[in-house]
């Protein structure tokens, strides 16, 4: 059983296809693993053991009937609790949606099922995807498998912890300001924010609609590409979906070649405030890229220094509008409906009790930024900064094929360390936010352990809009070279490795 869960998703898919193992056997191996370790990690909010085995049996039956299935058919996946699932509860880790059973599947959910992926359950997250540590979950935090007194990142921290602890070979996430790349970096995984609009938001519980982007988590670049390809592509049910082919990410992950590529180091995403060990591993990764034949130059993106500020205006503004739907009338929690109170009073009591502190903070911040008298100074200015950041990216991509930076300024911080200091928490997204504001693609790939704490460091590779394949190609080259240097995957050094 240990052998099965050690396999990559690509290997697992091949082993299931060849009959060496079955979807049922694989699913059972992962369910056993979850039963053994999730008590310590708390990656899952809901484990759907019986339904997962039913899905696995269906895949095995389709295969037995001679049906031609995709490369991930029968491979298990952990699904972030922000995606609606009609046969499993969906809470976005909020009390206001406790026990909610959606009447429909998200497009991503539907496509996972169509590809024959087996959904093991729903993973923990920061409430409504607002946070960088998964400590904002109403159902308790998730722990980082590399060191259980550390956070697994966030908001998709349940997904990153599940994959790092070998509770799943693959996981889904959503990235609004870094919520896939940051947890992937601090858990030693590959995580990708695809081009905005190339993965569907239909059935994703909304945080900031102009930024929310579903994407994959995996233990290696090729597996991430396979999952990316499985659930991406145009969706008529998402009005901001891009009607364009999915970039050839799997092919790029297999190509793994950077010779002759031009790579730009973003000057503004390093220096003061960055952990020395993070910068050291980042510098080594850049030297590695040069040794592999890439031409590396320093690029200045001056507006990136205002990205964090712009994001913490735009994100909360959109959230204050999106979360107005939680009105205690049609679904979810209702508090104080005793016959004497008005709908408005019931609504206000329900929202006060159903939302956690960070969600309330962002709703109020967004309400402030959008109120008359402040709108131009805050929301208006933030939108202008967004234009400037886009221009910085456009100018940089005139000269280079991809941009690189550390994914996060520090390695995983300790549980509780930043919960009382929202601004310190927000800094975890410093390097990832520019890509969300501009809408282009970015990937995080492990580039070593920081010497001072032996915790994973991520290299962020940013590519132009709809050139996601470039990020995969560079990521795969780094991964292959480091695997040779280390004699194996970084994750094999994690105490939860099997």
């Amino acid at each position, binding site marked *: 059983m240990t052998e099965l869960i050690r396999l990559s998703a690509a290997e697992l898919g091949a082993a299931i296809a060849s009959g060496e193992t079955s979807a049922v056997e694989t699913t059972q191996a992962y369910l056993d693993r979850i039963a053994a370790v999730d008590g310590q990690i708390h990656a899952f909010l809901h484990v759907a053991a019986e339904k997962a085995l039913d899905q696995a049996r269906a895949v095995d039956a389709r295969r037995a009937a001679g049906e031609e299935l995709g490369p991930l058919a029968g491979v298990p996946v952990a699904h972030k609790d922000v995606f609606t699932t009609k046969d499993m509860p969906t809470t976005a880790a909020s009390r206001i949606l406790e026990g909610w*059973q959606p009447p429909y599947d998200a497009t991503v959910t539907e496509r996972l099922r169509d590809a024959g992926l087996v959904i093991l359950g729903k993973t923990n997250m920061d409430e409504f995807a607002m946070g960088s540590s998964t400590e904002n979950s109403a159902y308790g935090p998730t722990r980082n498998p590399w060191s259980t007194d550390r956070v697994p990142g966030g908001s998709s921290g349940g997904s990153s912890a599940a994959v790092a602890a070998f509770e799943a070979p693959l996981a889904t996430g959503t990235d609004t300001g870094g919520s896939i790349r940051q947890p992937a970096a601090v858990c030693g995984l590959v995580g990708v924010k695809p081009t905005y609009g190339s993965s569907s938001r239909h059935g994703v519980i909304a945080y900031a609609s102009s930024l929310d982007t579903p994407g994959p988590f995996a233990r290696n670049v090729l597996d991430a590409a396979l999952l990316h390809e499985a659930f991406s592509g145009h969706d008529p049910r998402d009005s901001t979906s891009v009607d364009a082919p999915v970039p050839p990410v799997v092919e790029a992950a297999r190509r793994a070649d950077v010779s002759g590529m031009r790579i730009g180091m973003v000057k503004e995403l390093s220096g003061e405030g960055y952990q020395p060990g993070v910068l050291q591993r980042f510098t080594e990764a850049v030297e590695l890229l040069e040794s592999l034949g890439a031409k590396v130059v320093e690029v200045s993106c001056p507006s990136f220094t205002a990205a964090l*500020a712009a994001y913490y*205006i735009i994100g909360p503004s959109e959230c204050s509008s999106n979360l107005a739907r939680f009105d205690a009338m049609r679904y*979810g929690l209702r508090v104080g409906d005793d016959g004497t109170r*008005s*709908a408005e*009073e019931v609504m*206000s009591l329900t929202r006060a009790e159903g939302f956690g502190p960070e969600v309330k903070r962002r709703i109020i911040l967004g*309400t402030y930024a959008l109120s008359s008298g402040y709108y131009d100074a805050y929301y*208006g200015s933030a939108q202008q900064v967004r234009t400037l950041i886009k221009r910085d990216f456009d100018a940089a991509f005139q000269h280079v094929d991809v941009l690189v930076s550390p994914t996060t300024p520090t390695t995983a911080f300790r549980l509780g360390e930043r919960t009382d200091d929202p601004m310190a928490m927000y800094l975890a997204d410093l390097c990832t936010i520019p890509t969300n504001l501009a809408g282009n693609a970015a990937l995080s790939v492990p580039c070593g352990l920081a010497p001072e704490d032996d915790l994973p460091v991520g290299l962020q590779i940013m590519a132009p809009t709809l050139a996601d394949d470039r990020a995969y190609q560079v990521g795969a080259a780094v991964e292959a070279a480091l695997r040779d240097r280390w004699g194996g995957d970084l994750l094999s050094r994690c105490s939860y490795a099997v």
Partner: protein
Amino acid sequence: MSAITRDEVAHLARLARLALPEDELDQLAAQLDVIISAVAKVQEVAKGDVPPTSHALPLTNVYRPDEVRPGLDHDQALAEAPAVEDGRFRVPQILGEEE
């Protein structure tokens, strides 16, 4: 001078339909003051002649074919309601009583 006062936070909480207790208002006012002071940085960078970007994609009206597709049936729509009466959502009183 603080960027935001406790009274302003109380007003915003009312607008956002959040019945916050006194101690939460105090805590929020202090935290929002720090956050708003930090995000005000956008005003230094933004310049008058820069057009705003509200969205990463240059999309205008998007249409899809006008086809009839199955939606939720009555029971599915009501299945997760906090309260149901006579096949409808039961909600607290919305309008004031007419004298």
